[in-house]
């Protein structure tokens, strides 16, 4: 296929699910706007369900939102499906008629990025960590399969969109929305290798993406040691409020402390298991079991966290 004839398609990754349904527009039924909450002046959050993605919740499990400047709007993460992205756009439209000039992805995970394609027609810049594009490209086929399995019909028309602007660690990017500047910061490998935070200078609000989980168990897909270090730096930024990637934003210091306790227990217990020459299979059953009652979805993610921690730490020293 010659991508010159597909100006939109050229920006989208092919091989995404339900390609055969493209053309059966979503327009058939008007989409209700996501129920966003105003958390500061000109800043709105949709709090995702504290569940695993499923056809029942349309994959709407991550926190998303947008910030309105004098000139235009920045969207921060777009949800787990095109449908959710379209509902977020409807929420933007209900709040303001200013154009969407930026879609920011805090990292690669499907529950945060699959709504991007609903914004392509707005022609914003798509902004991500410099490692986001290769990470999405490498996982596009398996993400598409997983989305189809998880959401079924709700996955329709959901496609990944490649970033048009990269942010590099050590070089924060100032995004001007007209009288309001967002500072985008790319981090070293932590939750993933492409985490990016958004700081709204005007209200002192930090959008942390999945660098912070509240109440829901953190999932490790990057570096345990890196994540613990990045958390210290985020704390040092001393924001007025923090929007986590999942869960409530009412007490970010408590959420950060809980996450630190869990990740430290994961690191300490995994190191002890490795020193005691327990295998990965044994470690998965034993490490940080005391944390079970303290998190939502513990059984769905904890074992994979231990396996990831083990693989990271076994070559230490």
């Amino acid at each position, binding site marked *: 296929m010659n991508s010159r004839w597909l100006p939109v398609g050229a920006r989208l*990754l092919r091989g995404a699910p339900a390609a055969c349904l493209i053309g059966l527009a979503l327009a058939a039924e008007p989409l209700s706007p996501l129920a966003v909450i105003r958390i500061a002046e000109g800043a709105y959050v949709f709090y995702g369900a504290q569940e695993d993605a499923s056809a029942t919740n349309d994959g709407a499990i991550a926190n998303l939102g947008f910030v309105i400047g004098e000139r235009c709007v920045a969207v921060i993460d777009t949800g787990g499906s095109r449908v959710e992205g379209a509902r977020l756009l409807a929420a933007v439209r209900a709040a303001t008629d200013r154009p969407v000039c930026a879609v920011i992805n805090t990292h690669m995970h499907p529950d945060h990025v699959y709504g991007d394609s609903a914004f392509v027609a707005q022609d914003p810049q798509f902004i991500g960590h410099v490692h986001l*594009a*290769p*990470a999405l*490209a*490498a*996982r*596009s*086929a*398996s*993400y598409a*399969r*997983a989305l189809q*399995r998880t959401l079924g019909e709700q996955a329709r028309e959901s496609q990944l969109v*490649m970033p048009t602007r990269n942010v590099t660690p050590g070089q924060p990017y100032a995004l001007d929305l007209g009288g309001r500047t967002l500072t985008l910061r790319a981090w070293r*490998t932590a939750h993933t*290798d492409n985490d990016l935070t958004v700081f709204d200078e005007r209200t002192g609000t930090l959008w942390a993406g999945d660098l912070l989980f509240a109440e829901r168990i953190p999932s490790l897909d*990057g*570096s345990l040691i890196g994540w613990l270090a990045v958390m210290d730096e985020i704390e040092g930024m001393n924001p007025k409020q923090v929007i986590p990637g999942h869960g409530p934003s009412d007490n970010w210091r408590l959420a950060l402390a809980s996450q630190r306790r869990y990740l430290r227990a994961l690191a300490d217990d995994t190191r002890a298991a490795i020193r005691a*020459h327990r*295998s*990965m*299979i044994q470690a*998965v059953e034993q490490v940080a079991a005391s944390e079970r009652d303290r998190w939502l979805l513990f059984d769905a993610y904890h*074992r*994979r*966290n*231990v*396996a*990831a921690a083990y*693989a990271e730490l*076994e*070559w230490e020293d």
Partner: protein
Amino acid sequence: MIKRYRTWLTLPLLSAVCAIAPARAQDAETDIWHKLRDVHFAGRSFEPSSDAVVSLEAPNRAEDAAVVPILIHAVRPQDPDRWVRKIYLIIDKNPSPLGAVFTLTPDSGRADIETRIRIEDYSWVRAIAETDDGKLYMAMKYVKASGGCSAPAGKDMEAAMARLGRMKFRTDGQVQLNQPNLAELMISHPNVSGLAMDQLTRLYAPPRFVRAIQVSFAGKPILSADVDFTISENPNFRFYFVPRTDGELKAEVVDSSNATFQTSVAIRGGSAAGS
């Protein structure tokens, strides 16, 4: 009534396909398996009951499709009169389904292998034990995992390449003579599959993976393995060996670029020195 009758007439044609497909998804007698069986075990039959010979432990839903820990467990110890000489590891839906062939000896003591594998799509994982009399026994497990082979290896490829080929042996504290002792071989290697395509450039990272491992004790073979990128990054194997005397536990590893790596550890009666 008439309407309902019509529905009954037309629906079965459609629903037969939809309703049976999910049930078949976990039926182990798949077309893929039949093809693999015909390629790798042509003309051979499988013993009807394998429970007394081999079992396979793997997660129902993989923690991470690129690092799925599995344990192949031989029920009986390696008796010189009856022992497991080969274990084949097959992941039906992987791009390279026959991921490993382990060759064992009576000096292995136990034919147990614990390692970590990549799984590309929801699939049956099969451990096939071949005993010294040539009989085949199969243990299997359906594992839900996706994207393990096509995911990029490693978070930091530069660091991985810098320590490529480093190896470590670990044994459990006191090594007991004339008994099976657990040993762990750790190999630092990115084990690049060559299947992770960069969709921007449409280029694949070139494959580079460990393809052969030979472990010996005091000059006698314990375990050898023909493997590929099915084995996860930083290949790791736990297995057993029976020391009859003091000696050297030694591993030789060859990768797909024909680079060779070696490590060894001195084993003394009653104790071990770590490497």
